[in-house]
């Protein structure tokens, strides 16, 4: 079952709007004072959550495509990944603004001193080259093969993101959500590993034959 090109662009446009809703909700809540007693904590956590959601959704595209055979879904992947970067940027911005008031030197000191922040910061830095090379033009310039290699960084980034969250929650011994995210990312990565091994065995069999 493949939607027509027109249907595909409708799906993509709806997804674009839907992915923007968490941000719009946040903006609306700021102006209507609906963020509770500690609005900045709320914004930090909310943007962090949405970063993880979008990383997971982006990572889910390939397995879903393979399991369902809906190859057109790959067209949605770039937008989803960029949304992950968008929410990660907001998350980082709240940290830089509200925790450090744009004092970059102080911010970096904080990053180096605290492992859980360092892990999150590293993940954010690693996301940047992926976002920068997301245009068709850049794919051409980098070369498809190298581009693919580079974008495998997302596996590391998602794992670091989960570790960042896990560490943040560790002090409170509140692991239910980090474990959930961790399991989802693990399943999505293990599926890829499984397919890679399968492919290799298949190739070996062919070469022996």
């Amino acid at each position, binding site marked *: 079952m493949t939607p027509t090109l027109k249907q595909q662009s409708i799906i993509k446009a709806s997804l674009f709007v839907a992915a923007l809703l968490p941000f719009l909700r946040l903006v609306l809540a700021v102006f209507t004072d609906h963020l509770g*007693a*500690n609005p*900045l904590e709320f914004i930090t956590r909310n943007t962090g959550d949405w970063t993880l959601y979008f990383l997971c959704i982006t990572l889910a595209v390939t397995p879903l495509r393979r399991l369902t055979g809906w190859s057109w879904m790959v067209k949605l992947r770039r937008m989803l990944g960029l949304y992950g970067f968008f929410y990660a940027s907001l998350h980082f911005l709240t940290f830089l603004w509200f925790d450090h*008031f744009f004092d970059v030197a102080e911010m970096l000191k904080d990053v180096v001193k605290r492992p859980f922040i360092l892990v999150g910061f590293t993940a954010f830095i690693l996301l940047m080259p992926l976002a920068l090379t997301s245009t068709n033009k850049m794919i051409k310039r980098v070369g498809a093969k190298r581009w693919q290699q580079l974008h495998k960084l997302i596996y590391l980034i998602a794992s670091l993101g989960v570790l960042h969250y896990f560490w943040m929650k*560790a*002090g*409170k*011994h509140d692991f239910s959500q980090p474990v959930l995210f961790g399991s989802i990312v693990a399943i999505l990565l293990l599926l890829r590993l499984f397919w890679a091994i399968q492919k290799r065995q298949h190739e070996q069999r062919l070469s022996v034959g």
Partner: protein
Amino acid sequence: QKLAAATNSNYVVIDNKTAYKDATTYNNYYEFGTDKSEPAQSAGSLKTRPWSVSIEGEINKPMKLDLDSLMKIAPLEERIYRLRCVEGWSMVIPWIGFSLSNLIKKVEPNSNAKYIEFTTLADKSQMPGLREGVLDWPYVEGLRMDEAMHPLALLTFGMYGEVLPNQNGAPVRMVLPWKYGFKSPKSIVKIRFTNKQPKTAWNTTAPREYGFYSNVNPEVDHPRWSQASERRIGEDGFFTKKRKTLMFNGYSEVASLYSGMDLKKYY
């Protein structure tokens, strides 16, 4: 429900009071859920009457006091204290109660009484958060005897001119303004005098992160964040920097309790 008390002018800070709404909807009370908005939503199930507190251990006069007798031990006074949470935010709250020392003198500790241990309610039928194994329930806190005797240590029954809302630790809690908030146990059911340092809840769960003393100290960082500054709820925010945290949360009168102690070691 109103609770009358005259303000004790020795214990008033110049800071703006935190809005009642913020102080009663942004709470850490894990027995009612780990999310800060949860206690306000789910603490309605807590039954605060009848209530009694059992006082036992190394004392000459063990007793079990019901809430009304407990409240009559000394005149209630209102004190406006700063509250600094270990997570890096702070509030200013008008509490109602009296110095714990009034109760301690009444039960006559013997010479073995070196520490005081507070046990709080842990009843699954009233507290939905107990189903989650975040901590070993019941929540236990403790103080060294001289800390417990310090006049700042407030046995607390009310806030903002009313009896304590359930989510703030009704019907009776401690308030120790020079320590991080989690050192102040809520909904106390037992007070025990011991000669050994009590095994307190957070210290047992994560000893590297939460020390037995847990005095507010801008120079000793939490392993995962700095304690040098804090965000005052309702005031510091989008366009104001976080404020500097003060040693002992500004209550320098407790400093003598810790003279000679390495506060980096005894954090």
